[in-house]
């Protein structure tokens, strides 16, 4: 028998087929090519499987044959371990990278679209209330919001991929946005002339915006689901790799034990090296993934969840503010029956948004959830500030409504958009918005740090696992080859 090809430092990749294909019984080769075809073809061809099994059985009767089989199996196991570990970890690592660099930024963009639209609507109604000559900063705010929304829509559109729900939401927003801005311009033009028609246009624009906000919310939810899916791809334990790794280690230990019993030699260097390489990969896999998973879980629990709640809270506060303005714009033009009593449609909306934002007291609802999700003082502080200002806002709103209900429209207007010394609700709203913006920035940072930690824990793992496994397999083959050479 000849084994020279395996004596050298043959790379373990080709080592496998070589060992199986080269053996000197050409008639029993599992491949249909060669002499086996003409020999066995006449009555009924035997399957390659049964031929292979026969061959193995024959080989297993001699020690070199057994050794060859053991070598092949060991190399196969170690390579398989490396391959599966690389595959599973590159998938997880790619998903973790997606969380950090693709789906979370997209989810953030979607939240920005949603928020910009709500903010634009609020700015439009604020400017309208101020009269024909809108304050420059309100116009700027509106323009900036519309710009942000259309820019981010373009990004979202480029990244929506094959998701039909996102694409539909984006298409809808792209169609409605110019319609909305058109209506706002008409509202402004009429308001500038002092015509009540401007208010009717603003209400129509506001209605249109509600449809747009629904679509934006849909997009935001889709993007969040995509983010969740990336998390789900990044965090599960690589069980297949762990299983095969354990198996490979077990087999290596067994082979060395067998070797020791047969030869009384304690160490076979090749097999020891293969064991060490496999153990390192397995350990790296376990620790690396556990750390990565901890980081990612942390970024979800303390980053993404907080961000979602804070975004919802910010949008609820924007909607509440918009409706507070619209109550004064519409001046009773639209009502809705609650029980038997007709109530102003926009004031009802305001109440329901404020309820969502802070519950009955101002400290429950979304803000309450945000406060309980904030895991450190720096995160809790802006939320607490928002809660305080929501309470102020509610008090001030009551006063403004009181003025309006008693027939003092001017007084109500001052309490809503007036100068700072009038304690307008505008001030409270701005404070809530600023506080929530700070909270969002902080949580975004928290998310980023934790997710980076998670992703970095996986850095090098796929490549490392592959390289080590190849080396390990080579070592195992070498080790077995060393034993085989004794039979020459």
């Amino acid at each position, binding site marked *: 028998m000849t084994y020279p090809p395996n004596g050298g430092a043959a790379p373990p990749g080709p080592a496998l087929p070589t060992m199986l294909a080269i053996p000197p019984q050409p008639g029993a080769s599992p491949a249909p090519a060669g002499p086996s075809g003409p020999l066995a073809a006449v009555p009924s061809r035997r399957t390659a499987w049964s031929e292979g099994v026969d061959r193995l059985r024959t080989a297993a009767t001699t020690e070199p044959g057994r050794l060859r089989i053991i070598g092949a199996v060991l190399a196969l196991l170690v390579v398989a371990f490396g391959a599966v570990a690389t595959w599973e970890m590159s998938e997880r690592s790619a998903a973790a990278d997606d969380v950090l660099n693709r789906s979370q930024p997209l989810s953030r963009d979607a939240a920005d679209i949603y928020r910009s639209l709500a903010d634009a609507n609020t700015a439009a109604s604020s400017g309208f209330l101020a009269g024909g000559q809108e304050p420059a900063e309100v116009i700027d705010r509106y323009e900036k919001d519309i710009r942000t929304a259309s820019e981010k829509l373009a990004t979202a559109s480029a990244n929506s991929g094959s998701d039909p729900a996102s694409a539909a939401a984006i298409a809808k927003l792209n169609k409605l946005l110019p319609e909305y801005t058109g209506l706002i311009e008409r509202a402004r033009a009429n308001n500038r002339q*002092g015509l*009540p028609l401007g208010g*009717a246009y603003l209400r129509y624009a506001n209605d249109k915006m509600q449809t747009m906000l629904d679509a934006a919310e849909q997009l935001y939810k889709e993007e969040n689901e995509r983010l969740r899916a990336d998390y789900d791809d990044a965090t599960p334990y690589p069980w297949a790799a762990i299983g095969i790794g354990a198996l490979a280690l077990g087999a290596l230990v067994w082979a060395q034990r067998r070797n020791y019993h047969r030869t009384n030699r304690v160490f076979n260097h090749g097999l020891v090296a293969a064991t060490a390489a496999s153990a390192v990969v397995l350990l790296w896999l376990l620790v690396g993934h556990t750390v990565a998973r901890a980081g990612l879980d942390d970024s979800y629990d303390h980053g993404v969840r907080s961000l979602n709640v804070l975004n919802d809270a910010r949008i609820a506060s924007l909607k509440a503010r918009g409706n507070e303005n619209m109550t004064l714009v519409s001046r*009773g033009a639209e009502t809705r029956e609650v029980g038997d009593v*007709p109530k102003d449609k926009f004031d009802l909306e305001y109440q329901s948004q404020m309820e969502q934002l802070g519950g009955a007291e101002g400290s429950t609802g979304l803000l309450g959830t945000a406060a309980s999700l904030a895991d450190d003082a720096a995160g809790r502080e802006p939320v607490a500030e928002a809660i305080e200002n929501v309470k102020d806002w509610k008090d001030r709103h009551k006063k403004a409504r009181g003025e309006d*209900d008693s027939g003092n*429209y001017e007084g109500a207007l001052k309490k809503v958009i007036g100068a700072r010394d009038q304690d307008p609700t505008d001030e409270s709203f701005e404070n809530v918005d600023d506080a929530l913006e700070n909270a969002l920035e902080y949580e975004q940072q928290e998310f980023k740090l934790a997710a980076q930690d998670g992703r970095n824990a996986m850095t090098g793992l796929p490549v490392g696992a592959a390289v080590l496994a190849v080396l390990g397999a080579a070592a195992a083959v070498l080790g077995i080859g060393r034993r085989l050479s004794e039979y020459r």
Partner: protein
Amino acid sequence: MLRGRLRSSLRGWGGVAAMAVACALTAVFALLLPLTQARGDGSTGQGGQGVAEGAQVKADDCNPEASLRPSPNDGPYVEDIKKRGYLTVGVDQNSYRWGYRDPNKSESKLEGFDIDLVHAIAEEILGPEPDIRFRAVPTNQRIPAIKNGDVDMVVRTMTITCDRLDDVAFSTAYFKTGQQVLAPKNSDITGYNKTLKDKKVCSAKSSTAEDELEKNSFGADTSTKVPNQLDCLVRLQLGEVDAVVTDGALAASQAAQDPTVMLMGEPFTEEYYGVAMKREAEDLVRRVNQVLVDYRKGDWQASYEDWLADVPGMADTAEPPAPEYSD
């Protein structure tokens, strides 16, 4: 066989389930129907509010325009107003030329034809520079606001109808109007007639206009219904509808905001606006009627000149409707 039996019994249960679902749906609809109908709030002065038939069908010896004879004497209600020193009036803030707020005027005071009348009444009761508290009342809150005593009176393009007389008292009529068609000047619609065929016509939800269009739409598409009559002008300007039906006074208010539209044809119903007050406030009703007697002598025409004469489709000069009295 077993399978067949199972299937047929399933089919039986399916039928029962389907019937149960149908019953449940019917019940839900039955419950929701009155709700959805009631929700159609009218809002900004769309006049009729769906009860205007009373104004035309004067069958059951109800003459809605007939009010109490005028008297300059103080009664308990007038004295109450004098004692407290201010008059609370329910008005509209969105009806251009009738009652609205100009955002560009520094104190953005309410102004319009209705507001002029309020000033006249308040000055008569409380003297010069009276303290008036204007309250914006949505259309469907006009009657509750009077009944609850939230306001002393409502001066808000409110049509006098027999149905409303069950809840509130009206002054003598101070303005005559009727449902009218509003369309772009270059439109081939000429009024409430067959030129409306296949046109899209807008009306306010649960308004007299909606009722009239339901009775006879001349083949128009009347599916566009909006919360407020002014929303119809928005739809008209955006090209979503071809014409608007609302009462003439408010159509005039719309035409005044858009020089490219005008009133088409004559009013096709007859309605009168009145000042609404509490039913029990007899002395206040007589007092307001007294004010109107004087008001009709010249101030009315001046106010008309100020607010309505220049509106395309409105007569250059007009006279107030003659008062009718029931006692």
